[in-house]
């Protein structure tokens, strides 16, 4: 069963492209394993960084014997350690994610996206944690670097059914409080919540040193509002029905949406986090590869 879920959720094309590009932390993250990410803590790892004078109590294994032989001075070698990072995948499992005009709902799209990201992250020996939430955390998989856990992750993703309302901001704050080590926080959601509170949560994560990536997943109909004639809209998340002629209010709707997206986008930029608007009409591998390519271009390393 887990394997079936994996096969269903792991988009081969998306994963192939993502593997080639890798998930590289734009900033140096604090790792707990030797990985491909630069640690801000200069430890004793593989890649030399600088020398410092020996002080009593230092481990003599790190003495630079060549310098001692040439100069009779005690210097210790310091290394910049390639660390592993923890990627926290926050996946919105609210009912609003259950909308889809085509074959896929936003949640199905987001699930595949999350699975692909988790797989790629695990593949490059980083750790990943998954939190599917609505107003509260519904499914949590603690951080793990075990590649085999991908099956558990995909199984949980596949089994989840969105039902509740949306509460993104509490999730972000909770994560900021609970996580002591800096890492990567990937939020996958339609962000149909109070946008100011969402930005507060992001700001909190940034304050804690996390890198935040926001994938806002929207359906093409939500972006274009192409309805004609008389339409009765039944709101997900128990919102009241609306009977209207959408063609006559399209401009107004798109204006509202544009304001909302601009607010989110500018808030993310102010907080130095990546914001990507994902249209579910586009193929996932294009979205992921596009983002990862962008990320690689902007990586410090």
């Amino acid at each position: 069963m887990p394997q079936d879920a994996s096969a269903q959720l792991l988009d081969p094309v998306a994963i192939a492209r993502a593997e080639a590009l890798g998930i590289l932390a734009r900033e140096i993250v604090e790792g707990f394993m030797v990985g491909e990410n630069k640690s801000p803590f200069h430890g004793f790892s593989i890649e030399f960084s600088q020398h410092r004078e020996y002080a009593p109590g230092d481990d003599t294994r790190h003495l630079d014997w060549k310098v001692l032989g040439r100069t009779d001075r005690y210097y210790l070698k310091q290394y910049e350690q390639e660390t592993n990072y923890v990627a926290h995948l926050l996946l919105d499992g609210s009912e609003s994610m259950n909308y889809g005009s085509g074959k896929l709902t936003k949640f199905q799209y987001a699930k595949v996206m999350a699975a692909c990201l988790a797989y790629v992250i695990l593949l490059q020996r980083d750790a990943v944690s998954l939190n599917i939430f609505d107003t509260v955390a519904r499914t949590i998989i603690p951080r793990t670097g075990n590649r085999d856990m991908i099956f558990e992750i995909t199984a949980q993703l596949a089994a989840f059914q969105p039902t509740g309302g949306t509460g993104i901001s509490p999730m972000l704050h909770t994560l900021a409080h609970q996580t002591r080590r800096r890492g990567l926080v990937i939020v996958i959601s339609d962000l149909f919540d109070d946008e100011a509170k969402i930005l507060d949560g992001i700001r909190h994560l940034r304050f804690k040193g996390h890198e935040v990536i926001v994938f806002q997943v929207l359906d093409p109909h939500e972006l274009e509002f192409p309805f004609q004639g008389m339409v009765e809209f039944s709101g997900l998340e128990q919102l009241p029905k609306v009977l209207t002629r959408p063609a006559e209010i399209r401009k107004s709707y798109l204006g509202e949406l544009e304001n909302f997206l601009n607010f989110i986008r500018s808030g993310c930029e102010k907080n130095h986090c990546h914001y990507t608007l994902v249209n579910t009409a586009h193929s996932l591998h294009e979205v992921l590869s596009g983002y990862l390519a962008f990320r690689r271009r902007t990586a410090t390393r």
Partner: protein
Amino acid sequence: MSFLNPLMLVGLGALSVPVIIHLLNRHHVRRVTWAAMRFLHASVARNQRRMNIEDWLLLALRCLLLALLALALARPTFQNTAAASWGRTTVTGLILLDNSYSMGMTDGMQSRFDRARKYAETIIDGLPATSKTAVWLVSDVARSLIPEPTRDLNLARKILRDATLSDRGTRLCPIIKAGIEMLQRHGGARREIYLLTDGQVGGWEELDETVKLLTANKRDIHLNLVIINDRENHNLGVSELRLANGLTPVDQSLRFEVQVTNFGHDDARNVAVRLAVDNEPASDQTVIDSVSAGNSKSVSLFIKLRTEGSHAVTAEIAGDRLAADDRRTLAVTATRRLRVLLVDGHAGRPPLETDTFYLRNAFAPVDPAAAGSFYLDPVTITPTELATTRLDDFSAVTLANVPDLSQATAAALLQYLRRGGGLIVFPGDLVNIQFYNAELAGRYAFLPATLGPLTEAPDDDHAFHLQAKDYDHPLVALWNDPAAGTLASARFTKAYQLQPVNTPDARVVVRFADGAPAVVERTVGQGRVILFASSANTAWNDLPVRPAFVPLLARSLGALLEQRNKASNIAVGDRFIYRATDDALGKDAIISHGEKLRQFRRVELVENQPVLLSEAIDLAGAYDVTIQTDPPLKLKFAVQVDPRESRLDPLSDSQLAQLGAVATIVHWQPDTPWLQSNPSTAGGWEIWRVLAYAALAVAVVETVLGQLFSEPK
């Protein structure tokens, strides 16, 4: 306010259509489960009020559009004069221009018809813009020059200018009825009939019925009667012209009776009457000393026809202001010898024992030496020879005691009669009564009576006689004058009881003293049959040896030939019918009346007989017919006017008052325009056009607003 098409008001029910469409559309709402409700709520909250206003506005416009359309189709009209301030209402008119021959009455400069044409043009000039009118020429029939109202008023003017007078009489009431029916098929707030006539009382025979009809349609259709009458009191006319004895031999002096009638109110004196043949100078003339007002006088004039064939004999008086009735033409067919076929049941016996001995001598009452040059040529044959005899070579056929006929012979006899032949039938002891009754009276239907039981006098002392006086039939009217002798002297010992067939054509010529028919006649097609109740010889009666027998036979023969002439003398408005022989079938024919008329026709098969049929003829006078046989067959026929039209008495004051209650009567006066003569032309005001324009405007506004409102906002 009233409606011309009130049924269209049902269309107001269409006001519910937009609401119904709205309700139906509620069932066609697409339902979508939607996530981004917060933006939708915000947009709807911002736009809902505006959309509601737009919806109500569009609904109101659509309902208004449908209401305006329904009202426009219902064609509301306002009848009050205040509505006239909006402008004069267009008229749907019918101009009835009287072209009967009394309209030809002239004052020396212009005829009544000329004035009527000009006045009709001024009526058209006075019609409001976009009016339409039909134009009919009316007399005793209506001739539709423009059958239905047209907006092309220039065409109507041209038609009126080109209209011509006819020689027909007047009978206006059925035409007014037809005009009303025509206008009822057309809409219009003002539907007017303009009748221009001389107001002859004779043209309004059904006045009461017409007044009722106009009263019933008073609300919808109005009659404007324009009377063009200059109160002429003088009119003389030739009211009758006929051949005295019906026989028209060549080079014999023929007597024609000419009747002149004074239709005026003053006595006429010294009336010269002339009689001429074929446009030649007058052959005979006379002067009538005096014809008192309202009375007629007949004179006899004599002419000789010099050649065989058709001739037109015209009687004429000095011209007066109404020329159409000043001459009258009669077409006659002259023959050098009139051949009469005698079919004898006892042919071959000694002369006195035959059935035709007395007939032969009565038809040719001259010395046997001179019989060869006498104009009547009796030819005797046996019944069996009849089958091979060409009947068209004879002017009349007499069957004397003929037992029966073959079917082919009976059929040939019927065709001969239809073509104008004459037949005299005398019964006798050989006659097969069953054949006569079943075939000749029944199947072929040309015998005027059936033969009943034989009435026999027991002896000579109890012989029966013909009636002695009160002869009604023209054929025996001569003996009303005792000076002419008597028919009652003849003694009859045997006679069949004749029972006239039940047809209006059959008439009893003379009766026996007890009232039983003795001679019966009927017309068959263009021919005539005379049936005697007793024999042609002295076996059953002694009539053949009485002095009256010769004139009786001569008048009978004249009556037979007169019937043939009747077909050549038709009334104005009738069609000339000539039953031709088989060799003329399919041949072209030209019918001409001088330069005035020329018709090209063809001899066609009608009821298995070749017939030349003209169109209805409107002009009186002599007509030439040429059928393109080899050699060409030349005929003449005459068309005669109805003398009643010559009576110019106008409608009485009481009749005018009766008409005035339902019609506007305008007495024509020189140089008075129509609108001044008839200021009451402002009628109802029809607003359908205004409503239609309003509906169009609403439709445009609705379309523009609908487009505007449906744009994304």
